[in-house]
């Protein structure tokens, strides 16, 4: 219908606009004017910096003297001679592996609870979403540090049921989980996306399944999960990428130095320390590139595995 409708306006336009302007429109001249800020940003603030940072990663650079070429030394130091580096890798991976599934599981669970609620649905949705806006703030990170500190609310609650931790924040084994729990607290953002996904599952699929005698659980496994899998995948990729870059809560909960005993020295924290406190810009650039490649690799792996578990309804039809 649209194809038959378009030709008349085309000819009308041809007579209405001066030929010169029309020509430019076809070449894309105006488009590039609209894109100028974005193109400048891409070239000056993304592509060029990435190239520069790749170059710097092969140098010794302290911001004051000119960069000195050292070949692969930053990388070999990082991988073979820097236990702190590996410690930060381990901390970050542990955090990602704990925080992402925890956050997504809570988000999915609450979204399922909410999806067929009618009363006050909008209120719950907004209220659950609020922490996602506040969670990145320094203020909330400070609250979490206090809550999980020695003598803080969580510590006292656990003590009252006989579990004595002496405060999670000062325990090298537990401190990283404080950051993970703060991340889980912000489950509202993926939850909202899950909810929107749940609403798009056609109701007749559930009716057909019910007619075939499928119970509540069966309908969840055979209808909800496959139909929702693209949204699960989207959230998984997004949250994973974001989790690798966590900084503010890690900074606040670790007391700004990755403590106790470097147990909360996340990758980004160590990168900051190397680059901006110790002025080893070359080494920090190498770390940034390894982070970029690692995130790229993890994303790629997620996309590869997604073929076996993500179901796209319109592909089958």
């Amino acid at each position: 219908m649209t194809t038959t409708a378009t030709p008349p306006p085309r000819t009308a336009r041809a007579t209405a606009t001066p030929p010169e302007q029309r020509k430019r429109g076809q070449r894309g001249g105006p488009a590039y004017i609209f894109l100028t800020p974005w193109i400048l940003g891409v070239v000056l603030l993304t592509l060029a910096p990435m190239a520069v940072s790749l170059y710097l990663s092969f140098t010794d650079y302290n911001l004051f003297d000119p960069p000195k070429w050292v070949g692969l030394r930053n990388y070999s130091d990082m991988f073979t001679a820097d236990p702190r580096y590996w410690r930060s890798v381990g901390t970050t991976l542990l955090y990602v592996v704990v925080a992402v599934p925890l956050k997504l599981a809570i988000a999915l669970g609450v979204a399922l609870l909410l999806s067929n609620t009618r009363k006050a649905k909008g209120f719950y949705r907004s209220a659950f979403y609020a922490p996602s806006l506040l969670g990145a703030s320094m203020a909330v990170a400070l609250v979490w540090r206090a809550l999980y500190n020695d003598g803080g609310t969580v510590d006292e609650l656990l003590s009252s049921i006989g579990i004595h931790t002496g405060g999670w924040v000062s325990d090298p084994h537990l401190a990283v989980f404080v950051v993970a729990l703060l991340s889980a607290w912000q489950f509202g953002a993926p939850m909202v996306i899950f909810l929107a996904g749940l609403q798009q599952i056609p109701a007749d699929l559930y009716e057909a399944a019910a007619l075939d005698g499928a119970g509540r659980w069966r309908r969840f496994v055979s209808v909800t999960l496959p139909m929702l899998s693209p949204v699960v995948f989207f959230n998984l990729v997004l949250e994973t990428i974001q989790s690798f870059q966590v900084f503010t809560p890690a900074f606040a909960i670790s007391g700004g130095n990755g403590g106790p005993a470097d147990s909360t020295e996340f990758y980004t924290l160590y990168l900051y320390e190397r680059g901006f406190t110790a002025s080893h810009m070359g080494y920090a650039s190498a770390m940034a590139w390894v982070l970029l490649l690692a995130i790229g690799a993890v994303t790629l792996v997620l996309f590869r595995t997604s073929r076996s578990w993500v179901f796209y309804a319109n592909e089958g039809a």
Partner: protein
Amino acid sequence: MATTVPDVKSAAGLKNSSGLKNNSGRTRTAAIAKHLGLVAVLLVLLYPLVWLFATSLKPANEVLTSLKLLPSHIEWSNYTTALDGISGVSISRLLLNSLLISVGSVIGNVVSCSLAAYAFARLRFRMRGPMFGFMIATMMLPHHAVLIPQYIIFNKLGMVDTYWPLILPKFLATEAFFVFLIVQFMRGLPRELDEAARIDGCGPFRIFWSVVLPLTRPALITTAIFTFIWSWNDFFTQLIYLFDPEKFTITLALRNFVDQSSTSAYGPMFAMSVISIVPIVLFFFAFQRYLVEGMATSGLKG
């Protein structure tokens, strides 16, 4: 057949037919249990915020010795201490600095992202597909990959310890998330409007300004609010670029409390924390619809 379907539905307790319409005892108990569960989640979620507010009013000796949420008496002096600010910089100055950065970022993002989005959503040009793909890819790019060279560039330009490194990138549409959000919104607008304007002799600029942009208002509001809140919350970039206490933001001021392990400063620290999140809370209450909807639509069409 039509008569059997409702029976099966209600027997299976289907989501579309259960709930309030169906007043059988079982579904009503289930609904109550569900609401109890949701309220429980809500209480756990809100506890840290209530705790923050309560602690900001507690006398110093009660912060850690008492598990009671409410203070024995309200200690306003925490707030008067917080109002003094830090290292001689008053809190109004800190808030004003934060506001300046956030408003600058909002203007930058709304202008540059809507321009780019219009080109991607409505105009034809060579390399549109690859460029759009690249824009999506930059959404996933970790900030740290460009951090150090950007710092070096701004350092060379003499812009370190100014607000330029915090605001200028926003005018160059570096936050691709918002370009994508606005593109998705513009794609939903009927093309017939553009077409009609074109027949009336409007060029792309006129169409953008008079037709598309006014209709894109909800997406622009979403962009503005998210940008404001994210810039307000931002810590990392401010930590790197700002050194002069006179230029500190409220977030950087809170940083001063981070390495203090003593709990004596808890009252003023949390009073300042409360003040620092007031704008976010106000924005949330005023615009929550835009925020939640914006999140839902941008996430779904990926």
